């Protein structure tokens, strides 16, 4: 990437065009981008529209413009504002799915290892590690007061005597602390094969190479167990 004298990246038009073509080639694109009335119904129901400079109407309008320059302007933090609630998809009179378009654009951003994607996802790496390496997403031992101080003093409940409190849950699958449930190694190994074949590990490598290394160490251990 080239940069101007202010350190702002100079993005060649060709790359912007490629991004748009990549989005348009996605087999879900036609399903998600139909006619747009510019009515704004989607924005009215969109949660982040209340907090951020973000609107699903703008997303659809820019896609409909087919202008790579306009579409490029959404490839930074913009696409990461979406809550993925799909309120827009339910209420759009044209059955567009702005949330679906966002998902396609995010995929492109991480696949190509965009700096904005790396920055946004950095604090998310613990979850990414848990999911990719263990086939789970969140675990009881992650709910710690120092990580969730805004959740109040009761969060400490989960961190004292956690093992015995989990043991008291009357479902054997849940009697662990480092996973949401005790995932069998054979399930993890199948998940790794899927991630290999579907290119998911590759995506993680492009967005966070050091995390990828850690994940691969765990994957190797589980695979050889």
């Amino acid at each position, binding site marked *: 990437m080239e940069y101007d004298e202010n350190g702002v990246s100079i993005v060649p038009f060709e790359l912007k065009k490629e991004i748009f073509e990549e989005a348009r080639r996605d*087999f879900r694109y036609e399903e998600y981008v139909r006619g747009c009335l510019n009515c704004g119904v989607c924005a009215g*129901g969109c*949660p*982040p529209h209340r*907090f951020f400079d973000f609107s699903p109407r703008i997303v659809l309008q820019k896609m409909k413009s087919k202008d790579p320059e306009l579409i490029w302007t959404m490839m930074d933090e913009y696409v990461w504002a979406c*809550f*993925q*609630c*799909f*309120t827009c*998809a*339910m*209420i*759009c*009179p*044209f059955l567009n799915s702005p949330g679906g378009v966002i*998902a396609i654009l*995010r*995929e492109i951003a*991480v696949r190509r290892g965009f700096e904005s994607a790396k920055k946004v996802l950095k*604090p*998310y790496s613990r*979850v*990414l590690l848990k*999911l990719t390496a263990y*086939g*789970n*997403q969140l675990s*009881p031992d*992650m*709910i710690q007061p120092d990580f*969730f101080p*805004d*959740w*109040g*003093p009761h*969060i400490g*409940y989960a961190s004292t005597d956690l093992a*015995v409190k*989990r*043991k*008291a*849950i*009357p*479902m*054997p699958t*849940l009697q662990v602390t480092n996973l*949401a*449930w005790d*995932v*069998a190694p054979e*399930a*993890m190994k*199948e*998940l790794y094969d*899927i991630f290999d*074949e*579907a290119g*998911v590990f590759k995506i993680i490598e492009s*967005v966070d190479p050091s995390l990828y290394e850690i994940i691969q160490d765990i994957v190797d251990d589980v695979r050889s167990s």
Partner: protein
Amino acid sequence: MAIEIGNRLGLANVKSDYIHAAGRKLEDIHDELLELEAKGEVKVIHVKDENKPIEAETLFGWKKKIPTNKLWHHKSCGQCGNIPGYPVSLLWFMNKFGIEYIDERNQTSCTAWNYHGSGTSNPVGLAAVAVRNWHRAYELGLFPLFHCATTFGDYKEMRNLLVEHKELRDEVRRIMHKIGRELVIPEYIVHYSEWVHVMRFEIAKLKKYDLSNVIATIHPACHTYKMIPEDCIYDKEIYAGKRTAVSTGIALALGAQVADYSTWYDCCGFGFRHILTEREASRSFVMDRKIRPMVREAQSDVCITQDTGCTTTLDKNQWIGKAMGYTEQVPVMADVMFAALACGADVYKIVQLQWHTTDWRPLCEKIGIDWKKSEDEYDAYLEELKAGGKTVNLYEYPAGK
């Protein structure tokens, strides 16, 4: 009969082909799936008589068979981390009804929370994970029951994409062969709350407490009714068929008052990524758009959810609101937990409310539940376990697992 409507906000009584103003016909994917099966393209996990199905209607009046027996529990990443009472209450009811099921370790996350939070997957990855878990239920001769709303939404979407796109089917089939599995698709994608919904009158027969003075506000999970909206249960007796009936149905069957509030359709603020790494957006949304309207407009005693992410978001974010002068508080729990409370399940050992942050004791007291007794017994139980005692489980792994 064809009918034109403007969106998918809720027309339960349209029993017809549906032609959208934009010229798109929404097909019932179920019929297309059976056609693919007839051509030998896919295997289908059918809802059989042994699954003791109960029929419900979806948004456009299409029939959906909800299996009530011989089930495979597909757990949620979120619920077990924060809200273990949610699957436990479900198993508690299933045991009461003598339902056959398996809850095992051989299951992965659907990975959709991660996808919607970070974009670090793709449709092939998501669909392959879905089919992997569906196939596990299939080889056990069981029907999969999905606990999580995001799993439900994602799997509905993956089922549709797999039925509609041969290239995706071919790619997923190739991956399944690599891991020694086959391309199978469930006849219906079924969420646990749909099981609760169709079983609501049976559940209500177990009721121990009068709930007529309890005001409940319902927060349905976005991914149950906004993702593939046409595949979600509606009932013309509930909200006149204008909103999804699930969760409201069980609260009404138990005799609670269900009160409306102006932001019913709003999401909880979870945001997938936001709840973990941009929490100020989540908590502002929780207080401004959900909790405050529920309390101010409806004087709600309890917020009833049907998912993990929503329960966590709405429960955990109320405490910090006090710093900004938000005094409104309401306990949050999934529909099945509320039902279990009403039917006399132990507050600590079964409903597991001790993990929840917003005070639920006033609700118990209003219902007439002696939570203190339950707490004392639980504390003694923990001491027993610490001393090497064995857990009294609701379920044991099949021998050899």
